[in-house]
């Protein structure tokens, strides 16, 4: 999906991607940490069910926007953490601008602008 494309059909997907990429811009995260971070950053407004997070993460990884790295963490066994790739950083930057444009146009069209 292009980072420039935010339509009513792609709204949910683009929103999920933007939230995940924003959370990862703060540094490497395990899957479960991402959901908690997004919930904390949005003060509980966006709540990700962990089960729905993984298809999105794996798709982003397959597209090369994030990278999953396995590490052996002692007796707790292998853990997978995700980091943003350079391609992901560029994608996220363009996507953030697309969202700013979307929000601005939506506010104008729906009469939500402050007078």
């Amino acid at each position: 999906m292009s980072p420039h494309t935010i339509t009513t059909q792609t709204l949910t997907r683009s929103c999920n991607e933007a939230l995940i990429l924003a959370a990862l811009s703060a540094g490497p995260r395990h899957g479960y940490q991402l959901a908690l971070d997004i919930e904390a950053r949005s003060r509980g407004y966006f709540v990700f069910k962990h089960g729905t997070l993984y298809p999105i993460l794996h798709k982003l990884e397959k597209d090369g926007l994030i990278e999953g790295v396995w590490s052996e963490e002692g007796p707790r066994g292998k853990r997978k953490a995700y980091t943003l790739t350079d391609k992901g950083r560029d994608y996220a930057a363009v996507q953030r601008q697309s969202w700013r444009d979307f929000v601005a146009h939506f506010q104008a069209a729906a009469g939500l602008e402050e007078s």
Partner: protein
Amino acid sequence: MSRFATTLQTIADRLDLPQPARSRVLLELAADMDDLDRHFLGQGLAEDEARLRVLEQFDLSDAAMSELAAVHHGPARRLLDRLPARNLRLWERTLLVVMALAAVHTGGWFTRSSQVMHDAGAQAWAVLAVAVIVLILAAGKAYQLFIRQDHRVRRLRTGLAPVLGLSVGMMALGFVLPWVQVLLRLGRPTDLHPVAVMMDWVISTTAMLQVSLGLGLLGALAWFGLAQAVLRIERHESEVLLHLPHPRPEETPCH
């Protein structure tokens, strides 16, 4: 020992992914469930409440499962998944028939055009017939493993042993059939000089051995390739079994 072994087993049973993606997804889920549980316990939640919250969070819907599968399946499998089950079976049967016809046609062409097959005589038809069966079995197995990416453990080794067995059988036919030919020709009157008869037999036996050993080796190579693929898949599957603890008898089901 993970408190979520039963849930993970349920997810594992529902997760239709090819290896190694399947084992990696399960290991990731197991680790994150344990870590989330620790997080909730660290926040002061009681053990039971923490466990229930984790189970609620990791309740993978059918839609989530399908999305995961769509990410990890190859393009051929994604195409096949779009077909209704009935159409898929029809398509697979049609493919099998087309392949069998193509194999028979190729075998017939090879028999007519090849000097070796001509020298080997009618006895080579038996080897060729077995070769066609080996080809169909090996192709079917390759379709299961690489195109359909059906890596269910109980189906992994199905059909593999016959590929090897029939390939060895082809090689054995190369040694046995010439002697059957001798037995059949014994006592049969002929105008040919015995030396000429012997030379005919040597030439046809040599050709027969070339055909049977050649086709048998090809079949054995096909078996070897498929067996290696199966071993790799089983190794990934065992990685999951090593790292995911099995549920204890006293654990209650999550839902």
